[in-house]
């Protein structure tokens, strides 16, 4: 992302000709011209024109780490809300336990939170998630905060700089789900501090020098 200037574009804004650029994320082509389809920040690469959304629903991509809340335990699977437009399916084969048929609710029940990974998204946008990987588990303590999923990259920062900062100053465990949910495991005062910092990030996500600002806040 160019740090010198951020150009905000709105839907239907003309961005460039399709023989000069390629239409990337958040854009569409009509009659050889590229237009923005969402409100966001224009990003120009050598070839691609992308629009990074400023707001909007989480769009699941396979491989994303997400934090989900179980909404239903079925015979051999669970339905999990991951903040996407659709509930995600978690099959018993995709959990680290050995679950018998109809005993799913003994392991995960309505309201339980999990850290999972998006394993499959089909053309109908049917979502499947998995818990069979490192760092994926059922959440038993801590706090979950929810922010707009388009602001998650700012919470992580450049090469994880922001998240490192938060962890360093508050001695907490933090897991950031790509779907806009953040799990914080720390004592009460530090949890409050992290939540406040995240709120600042969310509020001022368009501004520059955010990492320095958060650092000075955490030092207090």
């Amino acid at each position, binding site marked *: 992302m160019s740090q010198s200037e*951020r150009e*905000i574009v*709105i*839907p*239907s804004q003309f961005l460039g000709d399709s023989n000069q650029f390629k239409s990337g994320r*958040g854009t*569409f082509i*009509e009659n050889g011209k590229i*237009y923005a*389809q*969402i*409100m*966001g920040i224009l990003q120009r690469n050598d070839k691609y024109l992308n629009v990074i*959304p*400023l*707001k*909007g*629903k989480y769009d699941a991509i396979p491989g994303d780490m997400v934090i989900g809340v179980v909404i239903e335990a079925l015979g051999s699977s669970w339905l999990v809300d991951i903040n996407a*437009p*659709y*509930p995600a399916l978690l099959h018993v084969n995709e959990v680290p336990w050995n679950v018998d048929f109809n005993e799913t609710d003994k392991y995960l029940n309505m309201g339980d939170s999990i850290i999972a990974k998006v394993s499959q998204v089909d*053309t*109908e*946008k049917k979502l499947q998630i998995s818990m069979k990987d490192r760092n994926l588990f059922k959440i038993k303590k801590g706090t979950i905060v929810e922010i707009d999923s*388009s602001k998650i990259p700012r919470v992580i920062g450049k090469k994880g700089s922001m998240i490192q900062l938060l962890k360093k100053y508050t001695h907490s465990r933090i897991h950031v789900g790509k779907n806009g949910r953040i799990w914080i495991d720390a004592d009460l005062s530090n949890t409050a501090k992290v939540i406040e910092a995240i709120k600042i990030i969310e*509020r*001022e996500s*368009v*501004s*520059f020098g*955010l990492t320095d600002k958060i650092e000075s806040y955490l030092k207090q």
Partner: protein
Amino acid sequence: MKSDKQLIDENGVRQDGRKPDELRKVTIEAGVLHRADGSCYLEWGGNKVIAAVYGPREAIPRHTQNPLRAIVNARYNMAAFSVDDRKRPGPDRRSREISKVTSEALEKVVLTDYYPRAAIDVNIEILNAEAGTRCAGLTAAGVALADAGIPLRDIPVACAAGKIGAEEQDGTFTGGYVVLDLGKEEDNFGNADLPIAIAPRTNEILLLQMDGHLSFQEFEQALEYAMKGCHDISKIQKEALMKQYHSKEGEGQ
């Protein structure tokens, strides 16, 4: 339709002092509600409208889902206190019709293929009504959709034109002026009303309704006026969307 009031004088000045091709004052503010995914507050003359967008989310009931694309549900509702005498709350014949035509107009500009099986709900609440609420509602809905981060082909905008001041003699009308954006008196006692909604980038017509009688030439003229009005309001819409982020950017520096 007969009225003892003169809606427009011989110099082409209307009751509220506007010229035939002049709009009422329009102000738009985006992102006014925190619970909704996207929202907009719009004032258009005496009209006050709030639009809120929810979704995309799973369409319920399930049989309304389309496995290939999202559906757009607009719900137009007038508050009980929006008109002079109390409006009976709840959907009636008129608001159902407006909900339907608005949904269809919005569906044309939303890139619905991105969200199969989903529904995008648009609630349009008329707080104060003063002629042209369907146009005001649709315009507000367009801003709210963009504010919600929903992929759009274009930001829809609506505006009306009409005809006022014709003399009636034995059932035939003579004279009259084609004017832009009818006010309350003009709507009630005028001769015709032509609300349209367009996609301003392509000039594609998304909605066109007509109430009253217009000759072919008058229709062409009214359409031209309404198109011009739409483009003017489109600019205000875009400014409103940009404004919320520019103010934020300023704070952060």
